[in-house]
């Protein structure tokens, strides 16, 4: 689910009138519902400023240097307002730049709860100082930070090279808080004095029929960054756009403002459901990141001199409506470094239960318990595995979350038990809008505890959403979150069981009758306006829910929560999806750059609705979407209420077989997915990666977003063209080889490879030099495969070398973390010997799984294969050798997957 407009029959008549106006019957987004920069007063004001001499000057005499930071005052020579600059050198090669008003009229919002801790600092040292500025050492690598006084500017240098400059274009602009001037006369006077104009939209702004009262007046901030030598920037999701960000000159900037956009269009910079203000820059020399920690509405302008003869340079400008400037400059220099640096700030991907990486079957809506049982049985009848079946909003009693429709779902526990008996699970939706209804317990408690967001007049804020008139709990309040979490206890959420997990939709939040379909900016979260923290709301919703799922199990079980809106740090709480897409080929294609962009900024657990949410896919599109989704992190089919049913077996036996095969490939590869997610959780490395992340010097990969890597070792080029007869995949890596995972055919790296395809083709290649574990015995759910044996696929590099890993734990608890109960093995093939050794000596876990088969690609025929175990025993393994493909298959080593062993080929 679910866009803000659907079949109006589920809404009250009042809404319908309003909807009738909104729905002019077209499928495209109604752009008129959402602001352009020109319609957003602060963006318009800020964008009107052109590059030039900055009015800001550093007052060097105010400089103070302590162990942890440097502080310095800046003055705007036009209005004499002073700012306070704080500079930090952070551990792990990062620099933090904070700018706030020296003496704001009232405190300005600083984003809480996103950083996992107060980032540890390293000392800065003063290298030189004169009346023009100061030079500071950033520690290693001869990195220096130059503070220029007039005009104020910062340059980060390495050797003689400028890595990045701040305010080099003079676009630092900090609207200080001021007292509203009520009379015309005093305004005139002030203008003369401060040289400041009072413009429209500073103290009040109207968009469509909505007026935003702005009691605090103008408060926006802006800063520019120049990146010499950089031609490629990425990130700042969520946008339905290419992986490589485009220059925004002549158009609107990329917008970051969490919105429920009905029927979004692809390839434009409009804001979508989530916002992560992190941009990565990349060149063949270096990868860096800029993390703009601000949760207000934000616009990002990008311009680039690409094409001119000068040294390439990309200029970026960030504009936010309120808060302070708080920027983390992640200096890389490698992509891996940037991922680690960002992870050290905001944390890593939550490690999902293994089953959450399997296949999810969703639809708005599975109608009743019988329907759920029939779909569940359908999967068994057609021998297609699945782990989760989902219930959208219709399962509730009148859109009252935490309840069940008494007619359609009279016995939820029986239903859940039925799924549990098949070792399967369910997700029910719990949205953050609460029906205003005095007979609804959840509403009454929130109201009586004063937990609702307040309107500017102080009463409970109310808006329209699925249930009709709704309140919005203030998730920014820790007490509210604790109470919300407690509602997931088994005795609170009636009918819930341990195999039931949660979906938070509409958490932008979506307000059908609000400005831009979201909350009024002057609504109040405690002392702060929604304006200050809008983009953070969705994160808090998902966080409170995830904490609820953890608590209900006494802290034992890993939660699984899917959310639509997100912010920096959301990766810690679960999965996200790309919202209400459509059954169109373009939407299938855009799912790749959308999830790649999220992966670059920490959110690995990403997926798009398989099949497309709106409209009905052709059978070919549906099959291709399954094939693509099977190789994307979050793999869930979903469909709009008004579309025809599309369970995998409804399109004839051939298509059922194609979908079955795609899903089975997913299940066989679950050990690899699980290992990648362990890594994402452990070190912040993305699961789904653009090619340039692994081939940072290969310029051919820089704007590639029709193919991707899973980890380092699998390259996927999904077929996303209608009627395709072939695709051209780029296999990177000079001197490397890649093996087709289906045919075992070997291909050289650093080439464009044309691959003829049929409807059954999913072009996937394993990198020569890697070892990937699969489970070949695909069963009806991932839980059923827990104890099954592994098959190792060893793809040899041209130097006859390969390496891989295997991670095993119980699949669902925190014991891997709290009690080090896991197995982490390193497989290495070198000198004709394949061995397994322990990567985590401090850990402990027992698995029943064993190694049933080893397939070595690019091998030559041995005379014998000897298995050696630590007890000194040796045994001969039988093998088969396929000379035409150079594939050696070792039969049944039979060793337990948790043990040390070696196979020697002679």
């Amino acid at each position: 689910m679910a866009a803000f407009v659907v079949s109006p029959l589920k809404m009250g008549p009042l809404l319908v009138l309003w909807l009738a106006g909104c729905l002019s019957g077209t499928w495209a987004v109604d752009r008129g519902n959402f602001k352009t920069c020109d319609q957003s007063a602060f963006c318009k004001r800020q964008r009107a400023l052109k590059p030039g001499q900055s009015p800001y000057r550093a007052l060097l005499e105010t400089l103070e240097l302590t162990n942890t930071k440097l502080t310095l005052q800046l003055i705007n020579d036009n209005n004499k307002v002073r700012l306070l600059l704080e500079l930090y050198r952070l551990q792990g090669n990062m620099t933090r730049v904070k700018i706030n008003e020296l003496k704001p009229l009232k405190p300005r919002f600083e984003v809480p709860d996103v950083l996992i801790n107060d980032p540890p600092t390293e000392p800065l040292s003063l290298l030189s100082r004169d009346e023009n500025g100061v030079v500071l050492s950033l520690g290693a690598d001869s990195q220096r930070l130059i503070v220029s006084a007039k005009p104020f500017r910062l340059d980060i240098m390495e050797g003689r090279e400028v890595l990045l400059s701040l305010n080099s274009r003079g676009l630092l602009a900090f609207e200080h808080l001021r007292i509203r001037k009520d009379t015309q006369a005093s305004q005139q006077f002030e203008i003369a004095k401060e040289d400041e104009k009072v413009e429209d939209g500073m103290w009040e702004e109207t968009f469509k029929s909505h007026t935003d009262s702005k009691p605090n007046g103008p408060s926006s901030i802006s800063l520019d960054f120049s990146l010499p030598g950089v031609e490629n920037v990425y990130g700042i999701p969520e946008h339905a756009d290419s992986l490589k960000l485009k220059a925004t000159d002549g158009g609107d900037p990329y917008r970051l403002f969490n919105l429920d956009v009905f029927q979004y269009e692809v390839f434009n910079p409009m804001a979508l459901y989530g916002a992560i203000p992190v941009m990565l820059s990349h060149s063949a020399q270096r990868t860096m990141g800029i993390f703009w920690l601000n949760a207000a509405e934000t616009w990002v302008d990008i311009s680039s001199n690409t094409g001119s003869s000068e040294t390439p340079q990309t200029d970026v400008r960030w504009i936010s409506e309120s808060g302070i400037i708080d920027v983390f400059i992640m200096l890389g220099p490698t992509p891996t470094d940037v991922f680690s640096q960002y992870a050290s700030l905001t944390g890593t991907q939550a490690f999902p239960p293994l089953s959450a990486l399997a296949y999810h079957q969703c639809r708005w809506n599975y109608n009743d318990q019988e329907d759920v049982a029939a779909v569940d049985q359908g999967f068994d009848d057609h021998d297609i595995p699945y782990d989760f079946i989902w219930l959208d909003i219709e399962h509730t009693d009148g859109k009252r979350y935490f309840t069940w429709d008494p007619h359609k779902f009279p016995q939820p526990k029986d239903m859940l038990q039925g799924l549990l008996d098949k070792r399967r699970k369910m997700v029910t939706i719990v949205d953050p809008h609460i029906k205003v209804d005095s007979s609804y317990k959840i509403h009454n408690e929130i109201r009586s505890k004063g937990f609702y967001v307040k309107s500017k007049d102080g009463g409970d804020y109310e808006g329209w959403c699925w249930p009709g008139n709704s309140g919005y709990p203030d998730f920014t309040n820790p007490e509210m979150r604790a109470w919300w979490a407690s509602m997931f206890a088994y005795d609170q959420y009636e009918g819930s069981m341990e195999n039931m997990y949660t979906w938070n939709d509409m958490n932008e939040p979506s307000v059908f009758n609000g400005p831009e379909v979201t909350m009024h900016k002057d609504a109040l979260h405690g002392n702060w306006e929604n304006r200050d923290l809008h983009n953070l709301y969705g994160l808090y919703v998902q966080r409170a829910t995830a904490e609820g799922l953890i608590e209900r199990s006494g802290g034992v079980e890993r939660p699984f929560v899917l959310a639509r809106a997100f912010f920096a740090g959301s990766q810690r709480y679960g999965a996200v999806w790309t919202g209400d897409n459509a059954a169109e080929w373009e939407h299938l294609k855009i799912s790749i750059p959308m999830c790649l962009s999220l992966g670059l900024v920490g959110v690995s657990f990403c997926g798009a609705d398989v099949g497309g949410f709106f409209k009905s896919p052709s059978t070919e599109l549906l099959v291709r979407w399954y094939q693509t989704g099977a190789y994307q992190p979050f793999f869930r089919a979903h469909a709009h209420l008004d579309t025809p049913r599309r369970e995998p077996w409804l399109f004839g036996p051939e298509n059922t077989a194609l979908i079955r095969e795609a899903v089975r490939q997913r299940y066989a590869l679950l050990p690899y997915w699980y290992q990648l997610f362990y890594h994402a959780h452990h070190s912040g490395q993305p699961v789904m990666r653009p090619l340039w992340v692994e081939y940072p010097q290969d310029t051919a990969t820089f704007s590639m977003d029709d193919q991707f890597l899973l980890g380092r070792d699998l390259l996927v080029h999904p077929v996303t063209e209608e009627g395709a007869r072939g695709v051209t995949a780029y296999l990177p890596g000079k001197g490397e080889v890649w093996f087709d995972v289906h045919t075992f055919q070997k291909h050289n790296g650093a080439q464009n490879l044309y691959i003829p395809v049929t409807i059954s083709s999913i072009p996937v290649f394993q990198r020569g030099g890697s070892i990937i574990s699969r489970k070949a015995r695909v069963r009806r759910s991932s839980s059923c495969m827990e104890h099954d044996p592994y098959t190792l696929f060893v793809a040899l590099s041209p130097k006859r070398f390969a390496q891989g890993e295997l991670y095993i734990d119980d699949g669902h608890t925190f014991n891997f973390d709290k009690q080090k109960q896991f197995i982490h093995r390193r497989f290495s093939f070198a000198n004709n010997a394949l061995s397994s050794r322990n990567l985590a000596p401090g850990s402990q876990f027992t698995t029943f799984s064993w190694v049933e088969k080893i397939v070595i690609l690019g091998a030559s025929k041995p005379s014998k294969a000897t298995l050696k175990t630590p007890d000194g025993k040796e045994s001969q393994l039988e093998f088969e050798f396929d000379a035409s493909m150079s594939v050696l298959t070792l039969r049944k080593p039979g060793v337990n997957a948790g043990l040390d062993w070696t196979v020697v080929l002679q």
Partner: protein
Amino acid sequence: MDFNLAGVHWLSDLLLCTQPLPVPTIPTERQFYEENKPFTCLDGSSTIPFDRVNDDYCDCRDGSDEPGTAACPNGSFHCTNAGFRPTFIPSSRINDGICDCCDTTDEYNSGATCQNTCREMGRKERESLQIMAEITKEGFLLKQQLIHEAKRGQEDKQGKLTELQGSKKGLEEKVEALRTVKETAEDPEKEAKERHLKAWEEQKELIRMEKDKTRMAEAFLELDDDADGYVSVAELQSHLELDPDSDGSLSETETQGLLGGADKVDTSTFETVWSGIKDKYLSEVSQGQSEPPAPVETPQEEESRDFVSDHDSDHYPEDYAGEEDVEDDEEDDHEEEEEEEEKVPPTVQTPEKREDDEVSMPPYDTETQSLIDAAQKARDDFDEAERALREVDDQMKNLEKEIGFDFGPSAEFAYLYSQCYELSTSEYIYRLCPFNRVSQKPKFGGSETNLGLWGQWAGPEDNLYSVMKYDHGQGCWQGPNRSTTVKLTCGKETVVTSTSEPSRCEYLMEFTTPAVCQEPASLDEVLHGHTEL
């Protein structure tokens, strides 16, 4: 050998991989699994030592070497299910912790605790088969009756049709005859009426002229202020309504022009002047008491609005009014309004009520009246005959339609024709009128929604008459038109047993009727067929 290996610690079992598992108990295949002899895969692809049969490693491409383990992705496992029905399950369900075979044989090593439920299931199945068999038996008897009735009904209808064909011919002749009578009577009627009308017109003209003259005389007197027997320029000049160029003033020259160039005219010359000004001329008397005439159209308009709303409810049948989607309603309403605007007849001219016409036409003279009466009678007779013919035609059409319907191989479904069957759920009353339509009506207010009109029989090739399809129902918001699939099963009674909406706007109805009951095999046979073992 025994399937039940409970008690063997299966971790060590798997690690050692030496415990041979039993060969399948499929009677026809058992012969291929001969202990201690090399095993050849059933597809012949390779031969392996017998200790690799069921050794938890897949050697055969067809999976035949692992009939008792989950090792082969394409393998299958045979559950004997003594007491119930033997069956195959995919190998992937062996030892997956879920009890699939009722005899528990699929979970011999997973730790799952399964109960042998075969006997219980067998018993239940036998019971339900028995019940089904009884129903089928009775249903089939009923079906014979239905076939018999349908045959008789069909004959009746055929007979009726023949009968109607006969009477139709007579009626056609009668209509033609009466048409001639009518036409013969209408000619003299028309002439007489025209004559009468012409005389009346002439008389009216006379009256009009008389009136005009009177008006002229009155006007002359009115204008001739000084009563000198002449109307002068000055006297006429006060009548601004006569201003030829409508500039608001009547100049002397203009007035002279009105008077034919003269300064004043006498009564007789005024006759010519009068004909030029009489249309504009306003009597000074009526000008003085100028009470604007009440706009006759106002009540008229209201009347036409009333007409619209009547028309609204009359014209739009339940199909429209019953639109479930509020959105659609909105649109429909809008459309209706537009349509209404078109459909409202242009404001009818106010029936003429001007003074001249107050005198009504005198009644026809007796001669004309008797001609009219004669013609009217001929018309009435003709109309009646024609109506009778139409009725016969309609009846014939309905009969032909009914006779033409595909009521099944033996017309066993004919009894459903023009019947309706209802099912009440918590929210709606569903109504199936076979061979006509399916509809849904909210229980608590709201109008009916058309879920589809009779389309065709839509069962599979070998059982065409097991499914009915109704389509082209009311449209869905951004979706298809509603349609309903009706699944027919054998039952003693004719009842709608369930309805659902598996996919939006695609309804499914289950319907029992004796008409689909097949000739039952003898009960013994049925039971025997399922109790082998």
